[in-house]
Structures are given as C-alpha cells and as structure tokens.
C-alpha cells in the first residue's frame, strides 16, 4: 500500500493506535542491548508463559531502550483505561507475581518506578494520553514527568526510544511519525527546509559541531550530477553504544530524517553506514527501510510530490577511523577505510566525487521535530550557541549508568548527580571525560562546565559523541592516558607518519612513566610530540590523539611527577 495523502497517513496512524492500545494487556519489555544483557529474553518468555497459564488476554512486545540501563530488564504495562506503568529490574522469577496482580486488576507496587498518564510528544507538541483517570492503587507512584530520571531530561532524539515496537511502522506513525516528511515534501521548498534548519541553529552532533544548515546549503549549491546524503553510525568509542541503541529503539526516526535531508539537498540517494557487529540495529533498520519502501515513503514519487529517494544500509568492517567522513566514504566506495585530505570539501566532492552531506545519527533524529515545530521552538531549547538537546551516555564509576537526553547548557555536575545518581558511596569525583578517546580529560573542578560545543572546546575537551566517563580517585591518570593511547594506536589507519609513528611513541613514553622508567625529559618530549601530531596529522584522529595526554599533563601534572620522581602511583593502579 502506498501512502500518498494525509488521509492515508491517518489510516496508518489509526492502525498504529490500535496496536498501542489493543484493548487487552500490552506488556513492553526493554530488549535493547542492555536489556538483553540483563536477561530480557527470559523475561519475555516468562511473561508469555505466565499469561497463558493465568489465561489472560495480552501481548508481549520487545521494545528498545528507555535509557534506564541500570533498571533493566525494564517492563512497561498498559492496561486498558489505566495509566502506563513502568516496572524496573523485573527478572524472570518476578514475572508470575506481577502477572497475578494484573489478573486481579490491582497492579503490584513492588518495583513500580512511575506511571504515565499523558505525555507531550516531542515531534508535534501534542498530548498523547494513556488514561485520564488514575486508579487508587497506583496513585502513590510518581508520574513520569516527576520521576527523578525524567525530570531534568528533554527527549527529542530519543522521543520514541523504548516506547514503541521498533519493528512496527504503524506504531511510529501513531506517535506522530512521517508527518514531518509529508509536511516537508508537500508543503515546503527545499530552500525553506534548509533555512529552518539554519535558523534552528542545529549543529552536527558527531563531534565537530558544524552548523548543519550551512553544510546542507553548501551541498545544495554544489554542482554535481548525483548528490548523496549519508548517515554516520560508525560508533567506535569504547564503552559507548548510544547511537545503535537509539536506532535499535526507533529506526524509523532516522529514516524519516534522512529522507527530509535528501529532499532539502537535492539528493536522490542515501546511505546509512553502520558499524559491523550490531545485529539488533541492523535487523531493525533493514526492516524499517523495507517498510518505508512498502508504504511508498522511499522510492519513487514520495507522497505524490515527484521526489524520488533511495536509501541503503551499508555495513562497514568496523574500524574506528571509519567514523571520519572521508574514510567512511572510502569504505562505502569499496576501498580501504583511510581518510584523505579534505582540502576540497566533501560538500563539493565526497562520495564518488559527488556533493555529499554526512550527518550523525543524532543530527538526523533532530530533523523531523524541527520541521514539525519550527526553528523557533528548537532554538529556544538549550543555550544560544548550542541549541537543542544532547544524548549523553553515562558510564564509569557511577551509581546509575544510563542513556539520557538533556538540554544543552546543563552542567556536567548536574548530569552526574541528578541523572547518574552520583558516584558510589565512599568515592568522589576526580575527573571526567566527554566525547570519547580523542577528547581531553577534565578535572573535578571543571564539573561546573555547561554542556555546549564551545564551552567544552574552550576547556580543552570535546562534546564529541557525548559519552561521559566518570572517574573516581582510584583512577590513575597516567594509566588512563596509556589506555586511550593504546586504543588510538590500535585504531590508527597508518597512513600518515605523525599518527602512525607518533601515537605509538607517545604510548611508549607514557608506558615508560607508568612503569617507573620515566624521566623528567619525557614531559617535554610528550609536549613536543603532541605539538607535531596535532598540527601535522592528516585527519582528526591523529590531530586529537594527543588531547588526552595534553589535558592530563595540564590538570594532573602532580601525578606524572609522582610517577617520575617518587616512582609511586598515587592511585595504586600502575604496577611499579
């Protein structure tokens, strides 16, 4: 069935609403990467078994990740006419008693985290109601907006994460999906879309923070027979899987964003580059693209507007450097994933020498809501120079490792304490790092810094991908520097001398310091190497590789000195 009008989209929406509110019990189990690791598969099986045993009419749906990784397996229960109830840490053995309480019509209070009566959809600002009345037995549970986890968040990119069945296009449409695409291709001119994105001041979420509107404009104006839009989902940072998690939870969100981008730029072909080894994201994205083709949202004459667009999922072999734009394009072309000099911009000559716009997963997710709600709405969120929200993955020495989306301008301290639940008892914040291996490590005294592209760059770090790693005083900074250098040495493509040879030598010098054979001269040598690498490397991997050493040298010089002069590791990490 092809959708060509508002009415047909509404039909799909009605079908989706029927799936979301089936008139019987609907149980949603978080079955993203984090959920599966905590036993979501067994929980799903237990629910199915228990529903059958207690002869209850209901369905069990595996959904994506809400972000509360510490409460997985997370279960949401929709009873007809009642607010949605969210339960945390439901293991398979807790399922029978929960289903029993449902059978009685009195959902249990144990493990109940919060209830949702109504939510405002980020895509269009309209209310989405589960139930207007709240039964007495769950009145004590906080409503979602007041629950500690959601209070400080504003979810735009993660608007559907963990709330819909990622394999169902109907449910995505029921929550306002593809309306932005309809609006874009039927009511807006490509120039208008670019202007909206420019006025919203959407900046690239991949790390650079380059204004997306400007990028699109350059690509639209460039001459080329065939133009391309690409989505970068090569997420190689150690311990971070946020983009895959969002894609796994809401694959249609990205498909819609890319189609709108393609229309704005004048491209007819799009590619999503996915890091190898993400079966969940691959499966869901493949299905989403198939469905979009099936409903005529991809292919020829989209919404009867005469605009044609094709989208292909490409899986890369999974090298870290393939996240670099030119290396990513080389991989798509079938060559080895090595960067090339960017003296001619990829907006003019990118993939197969055609004008190309490469954007990050999160950037694409932000496009449909901006189109629906306008630039003014978006630019009012966050700070003046960094508008909107940012998805942050919190990990390290923290009570509640999780995936959250907060407005720009929030301080790191707040993110750690309000969303991450602070550090475990008995330990205190020593340092944190945001933005993956190439970003600098900042000390605890900088935790008051506000989330923003320029703020973090000025402090010598990066907003980057938004992976926040929290370190307590048991972390040795020399050891951290060594770890990240070893990672980058392993991931360097080996094309240019400064990166290939320099990172290796830097790692050797830092390793020497951590094994008590370092000398005073090593500090100067590290600075010299850092200067050379950051200026002369070919791509950003080599250019930013010394950041971790430079920042730790700046903020934790006493630790380096302790290793070199006293030959002790203050954090007792390094074996000396």
């Amino acid at each position, binding site marked *: 069935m092809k959708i060509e009008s508002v009415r047909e989209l509404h039909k799909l929406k009605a079908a989706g609403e029927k799936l979301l509110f089936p008139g019987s019990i609907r149980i949603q189990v978080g079955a993203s990467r984090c959920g599966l690791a905590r036993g979501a598969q067994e929980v799903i099986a237990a629910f199915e078994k228990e529903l059958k045993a207690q002869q209850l009419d209901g369905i069990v749906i595996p959904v994506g990740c809400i972000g509360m990784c510490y409460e997985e397996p997370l279960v949401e229960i929709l009873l007809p006419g009642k607010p949605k109830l969210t339960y945390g840490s439901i293991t398979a053995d807790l399922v029978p008693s929960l289903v029993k309480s449902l059978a009685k019509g009195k959902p249990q209070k144990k493990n109940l985290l919060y209830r949702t009566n109504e939510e405002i959809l980020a895509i269009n600002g309209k209310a989405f109601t589960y139930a207007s009345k709240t039964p007495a037995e769950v009145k004590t549970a906080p409503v979602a907006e007041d629950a500690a986890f959601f209070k400080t968040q504003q979810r735009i990119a993660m608007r559907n994460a963990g709330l819909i069945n990622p394999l169902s296009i109907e449910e995505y449409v029921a929550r306002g999906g593809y309306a932005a695409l309809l609006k874009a291709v039927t009511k807006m001119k490509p120039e208008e879309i670019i202007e909206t994105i420019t006025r919203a001041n959407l900046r690239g979420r991949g790390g650079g923070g380059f204004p997306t509107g400007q990028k699109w404009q350059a690509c639209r104006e460039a001459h080329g027979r065939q133009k391309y839009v690409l989505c970068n989902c090569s997420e190689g940072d150690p311990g971070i899987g946020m983009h895959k998690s969002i894609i796994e939870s809401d694959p249609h969100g990205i498909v819609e964003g890319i189609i709108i981008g393609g229309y704005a730029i004048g491209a007819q072909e799009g590619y999503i580059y996915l890091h190898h080894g993400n079966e969940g994201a691959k499966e869901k994205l493949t299905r989403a693209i198939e469905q979009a083709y099936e409903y005529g949202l991809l292919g020829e004459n989209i919404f009867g507007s005469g605009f044609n667009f094709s989208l292909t999922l490409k899986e890369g072999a999974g090298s870290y450097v393939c996240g670099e734009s030119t290396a990513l394009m080389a991989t798509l072309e079938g060559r*080895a994933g090595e960067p090339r000099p960017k003296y001619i911009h990829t907006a003019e000559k990118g993939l197969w020498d055609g004008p190309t716009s490469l954007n990050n997963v999160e950037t694409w997710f932000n496009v449909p809501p901006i189109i629906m709600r306008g630039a003014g709405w978006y630019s009012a969120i966050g700070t003046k120079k960094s508008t909107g929200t940012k998805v942050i993955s919190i990990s390290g020495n923290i009570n509640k490792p999780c995936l959250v989306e907060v407005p720009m301008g929030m301080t790191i301290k707040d993110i750690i304490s309000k969303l991450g639940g602070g550090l475990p008892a008995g330990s205190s914040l020593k340092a944190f790092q945001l933005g993956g291996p190439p970003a600098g490590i900042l000390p605890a005294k900088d935790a008051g810094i506000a989330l923003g592209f320029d703020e973090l760059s000025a402090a010598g770090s990066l907003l980057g991908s938004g992976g926040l790693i929290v370190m307590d005083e048991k972390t040795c900074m020399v050891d951290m520097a060594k770890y990240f250098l070893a990672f980058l040495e*392993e991931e360097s493509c*080996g094309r*240019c*001398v400064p990166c*290939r*040879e320099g990172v290796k030598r830097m790692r*050797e010098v830092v390793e020497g310091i951590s094994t008590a054979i370092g000398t005073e001269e090593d500090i100067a040598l590290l600075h010299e190497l850092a*200067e050379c690498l950051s200026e*002369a490397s070919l791509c950003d991997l080599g250019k930013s590789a010394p950041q971790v050493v430079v920042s730790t040298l700046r903020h934790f010089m006493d630790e380096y000195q302790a290793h070199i002069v006293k030959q002790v590791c203050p954090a007792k990490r390094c074996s000396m």
Partner: protein
Amino acid sequence: MVPITLDGTKTKVDSKATILQAAREAGIAIPSLCSHPGLSGLGNCRLCVVEVEKNGRKRIVTSCNYPVEDGLTVTTGSQKIRAIRKMIIELLATRSPHVKAIREYAAEMGIEKPRFTRGNDKCILCGLCVHVCSEYVGAHAITFSGHGTQKFVSSPLYRSAADCVGCGACVAVCPAQCITMEDRADSKTFVPGGAEEVGPVRLIHNWNVRLPWKRCKTCGKPFPPPSPMDLLEQGKPLPGDFFASCDNCRK
C-alpha cells in the same frame, strides 16, 4: 595564473599547481619523501608541511596536495614548521634508522640520536611504490596490507604479484631504496612434466615476482620489461602498448 605570496614575495603561479610545485618553481626547497613530480600528491609523510593563510585564518597543510588559490599566503620555513619536520624525521629515524634518505635529513636537521626505542624497518611506508603502480603504470600490482603500526606493502595475499609488469617503477621511486630487483640471464624454469625452459627473467623480490622476459612484438627478441621512468619524469602519459615492444623498436 593566480597571484600568491610565497615566503613574503608576491608571485604569479600556474593555477593548476600545488604549493610544492609553485615553491620549487620559485627555487624554494621543501623537503619531502612521498612526492614525485610526475604523480599527484599523497600527503603521507607530512614532511612537506607549510603554513598557509587565507582570509586571516592560518592553517598547516601539506604542500604536495594543496592546490594554490588566489590570494594565498604561504610560509614554508617558520620555526613551527621546522619543529614539525624535525619531529617527523625523528619518528622516521626511530622506525628506519638505516635508511639513507632519512639519515641525510636527520643530519641536516641536527638529530643525532632519536629519543625513542629504535626499530629496524627498511620501508618507511611513504606509499610511492603503490601510488606509481596504480596511478601511472596502471598495473595495481601491489597494495598496503594491515593497518596502523602493523601496516606494510605487499603483493595481494602475499603471493606473487600477478598483475606486475616488471617495469621497476616502484624500485625507481622508492626513497628508502628498500625494493630490490634483478635480471637473471639464464634462469631455469622447471615445467611440470619434466620439461625445462631456460631464458632471462626479471625478479622483484619484495613482491615475489619472477617474470620471464617477453618477446618484442616487432623484432621478436626477448627484452627486459622497459622502465617508464623517463616518460614519467617528462610528465608524458604512458602509451597503451608500452610494454609490448623493446626500447629499440619503440623508437
């Protein structure tokens, strides 16, 4: 022709030139290891870095592949640039301490002994051999294998490079002189079944290549694979049947 400022001197240079070409034309020496006048710039060794200024914005770029632009200001030998070049040579001298070209640069820049643990690689991974083979000769016989610090140049799957024409361009361009080639006059080939073929062959050891000399299509005599280096130096394209006839018959 476009006007640029080269080390403080205003000149006009060919609009298709790179900074390196323009500078060498103007008699300014810029060190480099991975560039060749007849080939496009690679930007691998980073030794040819220069400082460019455009619209008030200063950047460090590799001169071998940066095209000249109207109004560009280029500084080729500032202290910063010299420090970068020195560090690059120190890094290469650590990797390949016995390569003559590196030793010469090191002596010139005053590096007595690199401060890192020395290795003993013959190849400096400049990439010129792979580049000349694919871009100019068009044989695509050799390639890079591995990545990062484990990278090396090899024939595909480490076997005998099947597409090698034996021209020896890789040997000629190698700045580290680490590719070895020889001709053997009466080399025996044992064909399965007991037969023997005796004749001159060309060997390129690095790529496991052993090519019996072809017979010239004009005079019919065996001849060594001709070298395309003269044509490359003159900036002329390689004729399609270049490897089919011997040097005498081609003229």
